[in-house]
């Protein structure tokens, strides 16, 4: 595909830090190649801002290949922009038209306070994992890997859930800022494997409790998270979490 260039109007959320109120700032950008990624477009904006002596727009990113989960902004009201199963860093400018206005906002959730501009604090996710998103096995304790057989279908299902990149788009897109898809992905990943079975009750109870403590909303089965998820995590994981929770509540002594 040959490259064309675009002229764009950007409305970007600027906020110096968590304690200061933010506002939208408008920028004109021209000569944006359709081959650029969205973040490269922001790089170009930032280079121009630095040139002018203005502070560049802060945004999170690391791998720029859709796997680390560090990037992510709302683009015209859509988490990670218009493409399905695509992170912000993998979104390319050929998706936009010449003359477009692009509104860029940070993830918004009480549990994800803004750090600066488009950067938010997602450490609540770490604390959810910390509450129980693991298998308790110390280094050196493991039996031979083939000692526990896992049927391929089961492993594939677990892998589907394990693919979550922890980006937070599900929270950002959900009208309730619920972290259910993220939490459900981890609960599913582990509960579907024999290795994760022994702690399944505790895990789901503790992770949900932590999720609530972090002030994420509850799930009203809107499905927007699934549509926004770049890793293709499906809603049936949320049902599985609910099931696991019900099971833990009624049939285990951990409830």
């Amino acid at each position, binding site marked *: *595909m040959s*490259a064309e260039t675009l002229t764009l109007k950007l409305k970007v959320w600027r906020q110096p*830090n968590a304690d200061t109120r933010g506002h939208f700032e408008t920028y004109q950008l021209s000569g944006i190649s*359709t*081959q*650029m990624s969205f*973040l*490269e477009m922001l*790089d170009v904006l930032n*280079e121009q801002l*630095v040139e002018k*002596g203005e*502070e*560049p727009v*802060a945004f*999170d*990113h*690391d791998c*720029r*290949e859709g*796997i*680390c*989960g*560090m990037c992510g902004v709302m683009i015209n009201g859509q988490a990670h922009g218009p*493409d399905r199963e*695509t992170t912000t860093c*993998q979104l*390319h400018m*050929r998706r936009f038209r010449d003359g477009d206005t692009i509104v860029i906002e940070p993830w918004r959730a009480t549990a994800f306070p803004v*750090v*600066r501009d488009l950067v938010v*604090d*997602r*450490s609540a996710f*770490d604390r959810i*994992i*910390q509450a129980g*998103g*693991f*298998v*308790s*096995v110390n*280094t*050196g*304790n*493991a*039996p*031979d*890997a083939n000692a526990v*057989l*896992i*049927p*391929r279908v089961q492993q594939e299902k677990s*892998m589907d859930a*394990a*693919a979550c990149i*922890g980006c937070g788009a599900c929270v950002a897109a959900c009208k309730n800022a619920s972290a259910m898809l993220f939490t459900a992905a981890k609960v599913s990943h*582990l509960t579907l494997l024999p*290795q*994760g079975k022994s702690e399944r009750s505790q895990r789901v109870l503790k992770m949900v409790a932590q999720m609530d403590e972090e002030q994420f909303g509850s799930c009203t089965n809107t499905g927007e998270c699934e549509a926004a998820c770049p890793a293709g995590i499906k809603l049936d994981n949320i049902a599985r979490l609910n099931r696991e929770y019900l099971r833990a509540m009624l049939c285990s002594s951990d409830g």
Partner: protein
Amino acid sequence: MAIAESQILDSKVPSGPVQEKWDRCRFEMKLVNPANKRKYTILVVGTGLAGGAAAASLAELGYKVKSFCIQDSPRRAHSIAAQGGINAAKNYPNDGDSIWRLFYDTVKGGDYRSREANVYRLAQISNNIIDQCAAQGVPFAREYGGTLANRSFGGAQVSRTFYCRGQTGQQLLLGAYQALMRQVSTGKIDLHPRREMMDLIVVDGKARGIVTRNLVTGKFEIHLGDAVVLATGGYGNAYYLSTNGNGCNVTAAWRCHRRGAYFANPCFTQIHPTCIPRSGDYQSKLTLMSESLRNDGRVWVPKQSGDRRAPHEIPEADRDYYLERRYPSFGNLVPRDVASRAAKERCDAGYGVNETGQAVYLDFQVAIERDGEAAIRAKYGNLFHMYHKITGDDPYKRPMRIYPAIHYTMGGLWVDYHLQSTIPGLFVLGEANFSDHGANRLGASALMQGLADGYFVIPYTIGDHLARHQFEKVSDDHAACHEALESSQSRLTTLASIGGRRSPNQFHRQLGQILWDHVGMGRNRAGLESAIEQIRSLRAEFWEDLKVVGKNEELNQVLEKAGRVADYMEFAELLAGDALNREESCGGHFREEHQTPEGEALRDDDNFSYVAAWEFNAVGEPATLHKEPLSFESVPLATRSYK
């Protein structure tokens, strides 16, 4: 770079047959009384496979651990990006693999520039890693019956690679991250994300602490402990464009180097042949496409230089399948370095495609005609999808365009068999050390090494260090802390106040270009000498013309970048100097003066069978070379050939 005094380095490899060295070493090590472990604090910098595994394992043993990373969460270390898989000598497929064979392949693959004892240990431990990860819930690919699946990777003749779809690194890292978070929940690990290590604190010759900058508040902090574990990854980003993530840097390693840790074999860098080429100046990174594509893709360029026809309009007769032409028996499957150099050779000669002329075609037409589109989709669907997403081109219809890119760095801080650097108490793990891959890393071996170091080596060797030494109490107001803190602070203040015109990014891009042109795939004396000159003058310009905006005491990504570029500027000179010193071609290091008439690498075992470990003197002054001689007792020296 002039070479100063040489001195032989002690690698502390135990005596005895290679198979027994690790056992012997473990037996000879002193142990820390379990009740005393909680009295020791260990600082682990980095949360990739190496750092994450180390932090978790050390905390499980009872040590107090402080863990640091640049990203907002430990789960985002660049290990996450590894796609292909992880090797182990399990021999589950019953196809003749063994610890010895993995050991042999790795030494040979490293072109005889690694330490045999380390490599053997790595092969030995490889099996435990798979067990450990499976127990943590890493969803490795399985056969229908439920046993683990393997594939052959990177030209290995046995299937020893374990994988989780195309996301092996992600899943292994999440396993380590979860183990780490479990220890955070028990209070044994104190987590410090969004921190950048700015300096090492050395007290009485022992590594006792680090200076970090809180990237959110901009505040400098001192963290003290009884040992420091550095697992900060590779330095591929020195080249600006690489397959590394934004957070990868040389700063942590370089700061330790400046404090006395030797830097080994910096010129051993690996180029990956199948990356998506850059499309313009704005390009910020290069994306790797799995090597497996070369199993079915054919590499070609037009026979006519400057042929601007669309690929499908170029008839068969006008195509040059140069790999098949030059290497009839291996064809498109020659190793990474050979394939990379061949592509560069064609492009430099003017046959490259793409607007930039820096790309070659990887064509699936024959495979699609032979096996059908569905079969190709089943094998490579996700890769084709990724390619399509990035380039907007449909590889089912148009050949892919690929070009080599910097991918991995075999060089790193010098460590002994205990993974201890030349500064006692500073241990270096994972890609940040130099130890196991020699001059070239085999596919699926880096993940193995990171986890081996973190799960199964450091927990033993650090205990030996702690048990053998006295650790007097050090507090924040120790002179060494003051000095380290103040020098880091003033360095950043200086960077912020130069008041020039060019952004750190512009300098970085320029530096990257110099390195890529002269210290990339093909290197020669004239080029390296000129590179060193260019680096020096660019560094001088950097300190005069740098422009940083924003404040120091807040999240300031320009300032962060400036600090890292400042270190690349110093490091690049060592990189080029090492390449200049190594008058031979081996693995990823190709000196054009040292090749056969057919263009193959020529190793010089008589003169260069050593690890080049460099000691820092001063910026702009030659580093001192220390040699660790390498001997090959178990794997006889041989020459690679892929004709």
